[in-house]
């Protein structure tokens, strides 16, 4: 009886988060996958059965997927969808790289700060989360606009003769995305760097490495796990980002998040929107799974 309770207890502890994931992630994904095969015809209702109840014939509409890779009458892989996938990957990659470039020194000095200063500094990294995300993005509008703070400052300093267009360009979008996602880079990097044994750096100096060399040969390789974790934490949400490109990006910065939105609510083509989402999830999950499998094997060798 006692054992039974304990067994139940253990399964309960594992079961709660597991069912949470099953209900709120896996099930919705299945529904999404389901819709992506629906033939809506001229109906406005996407939840149509995939099989004919009279004949039992299953009818999957593959066109939702096919049209992602080939437009009607166009060449293979020459579609607006793939273009915006590509753009999303490019911007997400640029955002993650920028966050890494800014976040690494940030996390490094955070980790090297004296122990009693660290909680306060860490607090400051998370402080922006206390204000509304939308407000913060709008604030960037005020800074980057043609008559915005930055342009006025540059004009006043005489560095430029007329305002530079920054808002609604790649620049404004990347600034906004890097700004919003920076903490997601800093925190895992900090968690990693704070554990770095300082005597390893001293050993490197002792053996003739300059501080710069020691950084590249010891600190960076040892923080690889933090770099990868931070990169993923920024890259993945940035890939599907919808709000920031809409507010700070221009028409040529169309990302996949916006395309899905348009298919869903403007074209009212839920199956197409679902297919787009499924392809994107696949594009993220498959390489990730391969990476973790590879890492698992590499670790198993040791």
């Amino acid at each position, binding site marked *: 009886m006692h054992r039974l309770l304990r067994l139940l207890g253990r399964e309960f502890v594992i079961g709660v988060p597991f069912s949470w994931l099953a209900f709120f992630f896996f099930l919705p994904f299945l529904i999404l996958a389901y819709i992506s095969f629906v033939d809506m015809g001229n109906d406005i209702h996407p939840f149509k059965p995939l099989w004919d109840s009279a004949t039992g014939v299953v009818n999957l509409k593959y066109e939702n997927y096919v049209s992602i890779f080939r437009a009607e009458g166009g060449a293979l892989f020459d579609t607006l969808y793939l273009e915006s996938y590509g753009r999303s990957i490019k911007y997400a990659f640029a955002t993650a790289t920028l966050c890494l470039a800014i976040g690494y020194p940030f996390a490094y000095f955070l980790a090297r700060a004296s122990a009693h200063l660290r909680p306060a500094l860490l607090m400051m990294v998370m402080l922006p989360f206390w204000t509304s995300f939308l407000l913060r993005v709008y604030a960037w509008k005020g800074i980057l606009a043609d008559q915005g703070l930055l342009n006025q400052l540059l004009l006043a300093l005489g560095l430029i003769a007329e305002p530079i267009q920054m808002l609604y360009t790649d620049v404004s979008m990347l600034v906004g995305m890097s700004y919003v996602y920076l903490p997601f880079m800093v925190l895992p990097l900090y968690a990693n760097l704070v554990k770095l*044994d300082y*005597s*390893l750096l*001293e*050993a*490197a*100096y*002792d*053996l*003739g*490495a*300059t501080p710069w*060399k020691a950084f590249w*040969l*010891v600190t960076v*390789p*040892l923080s*690889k796990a933090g770099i990868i974790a931070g990169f993923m934490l920024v890259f993945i949400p940035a890939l599907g980002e919808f709000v920031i490109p809409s507010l700070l990006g221009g028409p040529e910065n169309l990302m996949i998040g916006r395309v899905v939105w348009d298919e869903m609510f403007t074209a009212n083509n839920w199956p197409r929107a679902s297919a787009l989402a499924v392809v994107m999830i696949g594009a993220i999950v498959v390489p990730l799974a391969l990476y973790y499998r590879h890492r698992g094997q590499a670790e198993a060798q*040791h």
Partner: protein
Amino acid sequence: MADVKEGYLVTEDLVKRFDEAIAVDEVNLSIRQGEIFALLGSSGCGKSTLLRMLAGFEKPSSGRILLGGQDVAGMAPYERPINMMFQSYALFPHLDIWDNVAFGLKREGCPKAEIQQRVGAMLDLVQLTPYARRKPHQLSGGQQQRVALARSLAKKPKLLLLDEPLGALDKKLREQTQFELVNIIEQVGVTCVMVTHDQEEAMTMANRIAVMSKGRVLQVGSPKEIYEFPSSRFVADFIGNVNLFDGKLSVDEADHCAIATSLGEMQVGHGISGSLGMPVTLAVRPEKISIAKQRPAGVDRNLFQGRVKEIAYFGSFNTFIVVTPDGTKVKITEPNGSRHDLLDLTWEDEVFFWWDDTDGVALRD
């Protein structure tokens, strides 16, 4: 003290202050080429700070560090021809054993063939050639220690620093390792400064020892000198076991003196050129004191009586605590050299104990 001219590594009035606290206070050392020199002291005595100044991790507040006549005090650690074996070994966990040992040579920009040859020779020296492609965490503590040694010797440093070299090993492994370590260091012939809080480690490994306390060097000498001829009460007490008898100087000649203590007058086989009546402490090692139930024949000096209070059996020797009528506790050790316990002493026995004039050291404080 060694002649300053033969000093290979010399520290001149070396001082290190942290804010207001003085960690190292005017240390003057002269270390000979090729010797193993130990800095011995309890934690916080400044020995580690001194070592870190030699390595270049701490900047001296004042003073000079001369290595082969060259002042290295202002040099960065990566510019010094000095390598250190860290207490934690500080092996690079992401590199295999071969790359750990090659790390310093690569920074020097050695040609590839030379690195190959040198790393190979180092791994042979520490007998780890079969493990060249393992990662540090796959090795045992003793093996990791040998990798750390090989890495710190790879660049042929002019000076090798050892920070608590055996501190991370368990007791059994220590004894075996310390002989190995000394063999390798002597084989290479490198001058070596080690830091330790373990007097046994210092005595067995070092040619000379500097005993440190509160940032100062109290005495420098060979293990034997330090043990047999401590120059101060602190050193006598710190190294090994000792009985300290406080008293007043009653006789003081060139070759002998006497001290009046609460037990009676004690004769000492050397003079201390002090003034009569000054407070003096006599230090006598427990193993120098003889003990017996019967009054020994022909002994009339440094002979006292007491009662056995405690007996501790250590296998190879016995320790007795004898209390004299005035309440002084005296520690006496006797080797267990014979099949039968000839002493046949037990608790509460009345005993005699005595030592030779030359077995005690008179210390002025």
